[in-house]
């Protein structure tokens, strides 16, 4: 067996083991490289930045543990910006695990300590609402007919932030972060097509291409493109966190993947016609 034949089929354990090492090294020794921010995340940042203080945002925590490593850091950065701008945030979850993500995100933002925000006045979490698009339509339609308590069971009538919030017309912005294709499209259908609302969407990088058409046509005003978008938001808002740390990990792992792709292709062309058919 020639060297190229060996190179064309390296054992999976070797490839995967090297990838694991490539993740651990940069985590221990961060490089702190400069960051280029993408169009879509800058559009997200600018849309929020343009809102006057006191504007009300409807925010869907539409992901669970599977999406947390990618979307959690972005969510924290997004909330930093919103609290800093003195916006009021009405949060809900269309994902089953969304209500478990809420405390994790809030631990990262600490709105009481950092911004003097008060629960019930400046932000509220309505909890998980089942039904996907039905839940979205319910909240945007006649909110109080559907929701009467927040996620801890407190009556919404006793929370001042909800006094003037009855449906889509009272939200100045609808934003979501999700791992589900149906949720990403659903908010466009229910918020944009139904109420012509301003929508921002955050999703995993693998979904970005599929919801990009909505961004091009102005149905979504900004996209937070997975971990890259999260790093952009951390950078733009000036609150560096896990996403920027992960940039270094991405550098190492993806560089390694590129090397493997190169090996794969060179060895493929060198052995072409020799063993490929069998």
């Amino acid at each position, binding site marked *: 067996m020639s060297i190229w034949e060996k190179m064309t089929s390296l054992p*999976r*354990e070797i490839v*995967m083991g090297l990838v694991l090492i490539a*993740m*651990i090294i940069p*985590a*221990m020794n961060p490089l702190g490289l400069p960051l280029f921010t993408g169009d879509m995340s800058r559009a997200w940042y600018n849309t929020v930045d343009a809102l006057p203080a006191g504007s009300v945002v409807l925010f869907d925590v539409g992901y669970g543990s*599977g*999406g*947390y*490593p*990618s979307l*959690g850091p972005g969510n924290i950065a997004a909330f930093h910006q919103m609290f800093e701008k003195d916006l009021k945030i009405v949060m809900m979850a269309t994902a*089953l*695990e969304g*209500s*478990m993500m809420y405390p994790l995100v809030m631990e990262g933002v600490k709105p009481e300590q950092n911004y003097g925000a008060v629960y019930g006045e400046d932000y509220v979490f309505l*909890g*998980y*609402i*089942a039904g*996907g*698009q*039905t839940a979205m*339509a319910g909240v945007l339609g006649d909110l109080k007919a*559907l*929701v*009467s*308590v927040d996620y801890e*069971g407190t009556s919404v009538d006793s929370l001042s932030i909800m006094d003037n919030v009855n449906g889509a017309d009272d939200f100045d912005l609808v934003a979501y972060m999700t791992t589900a294709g149906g949720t990403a*499209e*659903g908010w*466009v*259908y*229910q918020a*944009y*097509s*139904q109420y012509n609302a301003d929508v921002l969407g955050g999703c*995993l*990088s*693998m979904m*970005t*291409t599929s919801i990009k*058409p*909505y961004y*091009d*046509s*102005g*149905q979504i005003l900004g996209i937070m*493109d*997975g*971990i*890259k978008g999260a790093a952009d938001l951390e950078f733009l808002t000036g609150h560096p966190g896990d996403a920027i*740390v*992960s940039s270094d*990990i*991405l550098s190492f*792992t*993806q560089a390694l*993947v590129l090397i493997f792709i190169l090996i794969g292709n060179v060895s493929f062309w060198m052995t072409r016609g020799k063993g490929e058919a069998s």
Partner: protein
Amino acid sequence: MVSVDPQIWIAAFFTIAATSYAFRDNVVFKFAENTFIGVAAGHTIVMGVKNIRDYGWTHIMQGEMIYSVAFLLGILLYARFHRDYYWLYRYPIAFLVGNGIGISIRAAIHSDFIVQVAATASPLIKSDALGTVNALITFVGVVTSISHFIFTQEKIHEGAIGIVPKIGRWMMLLAFGASFGNTVMSRFGMYQGRIIFLLREWLQII
């Protein structure tokens, strides 16, 4: 210093157990997988009950008895497990399907068809050369990729005009490449969170 918090240790164990599958299927992974299915189902039940309480029961408590119809329909879902009365579950399913379809297609025709076509029907000539080139590429991409999915007119896939759907296929393959590349980032971006957890919270070396 390694963590002494039992919660962190349990989490670290499950992180490593779930990762092990990528290298080889094994009994520890099987244990982790069964745990995962169990807790996911448990969590779903908890959220289901809370959902019924918050959005159904509270209404009934406030005297809106009409919500008891929703309770009846909800309970009928479980008729599917009965040998003779299984067909009763079709009533609530029919309700959910009608509502789900109605609520999505009424807007889909606007979001996915009208707005998208309107966005394509925009000037091809922009103020700068790059803008014009980009607009042209986008336009060609839209028209040719739609034409690729026309199945009842054989003629557009033959002869000289057959190049149009073919270009559509090539454009889509280029776009899929971009999607593939982004997915690589997506997966690594997700796993890095676990690495940071293991090193920071469990081993406490960063």
